[in-house]
């Protein structure tokens, strides 16, 4: 009987105390960083059953919610391509032989050389004309705006080691 009374009193007291406490003020006084620092995250993770967690995730639904187009738009493809070491790629994969098999021919090689020589001579004459006219090459437009408009100058690959 006394025990039941004590229980009832305790419940009532706790309820009154809880009502009286300003929870916001209490939370503000808690040092969250201190609490977090005391948590052993590794131990916590060890206790988590990741497989069970993953099983509960609806991947299909998750993928449907991802805006792939938006992600792709944010990728700087030019930067990605520039970071690829083409020489190493060709050395390590069969890509070289595939390209050789599909595109290399005497005609295309001759064309490449003719064009490269043409560009080389274009540059030679342009350099001399710029020198005579005393105008800095960087002040000249590289091409029509729609074709050369790039946010930043992409470093050009130099070729051949001599």
């Amino acid at each position, binding site marked *: 009987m006394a025990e039941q009374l004590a229980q009832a009193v305790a419940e009532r007291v706790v309820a009154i105390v809880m009502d009286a406490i300003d929870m916001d003020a209490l939370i503000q006084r808690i040092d969250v960083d201190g609490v977090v620092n005391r948590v052993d995250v590794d131990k916590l993770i060890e206790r988590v059953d990741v497989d069970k967690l993953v099983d509960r995730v609806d991947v299909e639904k998750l993928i449907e919610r991802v805006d792939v187009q938006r992600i792709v738009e944010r990728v700087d493809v030019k930067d990605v391509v520039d970071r690829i070491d083409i020489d190493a790629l060709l050395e390590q994969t069969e890509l070289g*032989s595939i390209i*050789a098999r599909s595109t290399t021919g005497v005609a295309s*090689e001759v064309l490449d*050389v003719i064009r490269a020589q043409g560009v080389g001579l274009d540059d030679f004459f342009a350099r001399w004309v710029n020198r005579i006219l005393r105008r800095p090459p960087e002040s000249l437009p590289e091409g029509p705006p729609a074709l050369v408009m790039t946010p930043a100058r992409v470093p*050009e690959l130099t*070729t*051949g080691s001599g």
Partner: protein
Amino acid sequence: MTDPVTQGKPIEGRQGHYAGAVSRLVAFAADVGASWGLFTLGAAALDFSVQLASGGSFSLTGHPLASLLAVIVWEFFYFSYQWALSGKTIGMAVLGIRVVKTDGAPIGWSQAVARTITLPLSFLFLGLGFLGILVSRDRHALHDRLAGTAVVYSWDARAARLRWLAKQDPTAPSI
């Protein structure tokens, strides 16, 4: 070993840049040769057809005025049709250059025709109209300015380099 395609120079990434005088001159020379060769072939085919149909012979050499007219019409067709169709002639395709509007957009029939009609003007006064390719800031010849066009590199040097690198691969089968 030096890359024979690029001669060790950084020419990759030139697509869309204004083409220089040498590439354009060589392309034009190639076009003169190609158009003349095709014209001669066409004239011979016409002669042969007339011979087959009537038993007689037909040659343009005996008709200077008709020859001149035929050459003018043919050259007009040769350049304007190819420029309107793809922005490049046979010679330009060989040299990896093409004609675009001044803003870089592909040209249409109006620009192609205007460029073909104004091209002879650049030959006046010892080809003074072509000097702009060398000295103007945007490498425009006189007929480019009149027609509102520009000539740019369309050659993919990166692909050429890939082909050259592929050839260096000793495991690649010989073609």
